[in-house]
């Protein structure tokens, strides 16, 4: 009973077919195997044409995100034995165009990530002789949670708003923007505020909260977005009440 499991894997070969099809593969199921082990077994021993992304197999690179029974998961961190006796349905991440089999195009996300300037922005750099930018443990705590993002895009897959409107900048981009905004060494908060306040920025979010639920690194992008909305609203009030001071 416990030693075999069926994987229903989504296949899409644009040169052969115009739609996604499911193929069943019956595999051995040792208790320590994760879904990624199953996929590699299929590729090594059963069907070498199966295409999927993976790298570190330990939950830090963010490459192996897929839908397992409809839930966005890192396949290197999802045990097959949890789904016994199966079958387990493996599909490419939702809300992204599928290039082939389990591989999706991530260009949209990469573009958005770059837009929000994911680096320390400073008005002026300190000369080297003045030493490093020092930071207390409390200042680190302020943004550390948001620095845990591994860009796996499970949150984009879970977000219904992104699914409905691909222009929405999305949870991870905003969380990463907050990681830099809240960093005491950064001086780019105003620039990022300009970018995120546009019509495809934070205001599209309706706090569904699914992004936080699926995040494997507990980044809490939903919390980051709501806090940012409050910050943005307070900036608006300041600009309204004290237009000169806000400039």
């Amino acid at each position, binding site marked *: 009973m416990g030693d075999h499991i069926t994987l229903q894997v989504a296949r899409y070969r644009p040169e052969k077919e115009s739609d996604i099809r499911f193929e069943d593969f019956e595999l051995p199921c040792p208790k320590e195997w994760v879904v990624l082990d199953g996929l590699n077994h299929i590729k090594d021993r059963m069907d070498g044409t199966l295409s999927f992304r993976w790298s570190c197999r330990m939950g830090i690179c963010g490459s192996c995100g897929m839908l397992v029974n409809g839930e966005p998961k890192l396949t290197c961190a999802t045990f097959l034995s949890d789904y016994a006796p199966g079958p387990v349905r493996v599909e490419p991440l939702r809300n992204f165009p599928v290039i082939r089999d389990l591989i999706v195009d991530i260009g949209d996300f990469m573009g958005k990530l770059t837009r929000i300037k994911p680096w320390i922005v400073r008005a002026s750099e300190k000369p080297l002789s003045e030493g490093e930018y020092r930071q207390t443990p409390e200042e680190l705590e302020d943004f550390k949670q948001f620095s845990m993002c591994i860009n796996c895009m499970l949150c984009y897959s879970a977000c219904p708003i992104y699914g*409905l409107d691909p222009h929405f900048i999305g949870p991870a981009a905003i969380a990463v923007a907050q990681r830099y905004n809240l960093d005491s060494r950064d001086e780019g908060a105003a620039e990022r505020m300009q970018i995120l*306040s*546009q019509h495809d920025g934070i205001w599209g979010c309706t706090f569904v909260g699914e992004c936080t639920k699926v995040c494997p690194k507990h980044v809490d992008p939903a919390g980051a977005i709501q806090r940012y*909305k*409050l910050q*943005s609203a307070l900036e*608006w*009030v300041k600009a309204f009440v004290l*237009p000169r001071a*806000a400039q």
Partner: protein
Amino acid sequence: MYIRRPIEPFLWLLFSAGGVMAALFIPATLFLFGVAFPLGWLTPPPYDRLLAIVGYPLTRVLLFGLCSLSLFHGAHRFRYTLYDGLQIKHLNEVINSICYGGAVVGTLVAAYLLWIVP
């Protein structure tokens, strides 16, 4: 100085304030007037008592704030529900006018009614 959608943060502030007011004040009030009194579980206050409460200036202001903010809260939320639920974001001008327009009309009606209470 501000960016292309200057009104959005303000609408969100109204939505948040309305959400807090609605969450705090509506449950008990709706329970009493909508459920408990009609079902006879509790006795409604006599007219003179209710008139005294509602006629009190502080109550009028509070009720006005509750009505207006709750309407803007509901309008904002419903607008996004129409975008996401029915996928009609392209009709956003029509939707915005109906939702926020309705909230404005409701606010004016509330102001008038709370003014004319003796």
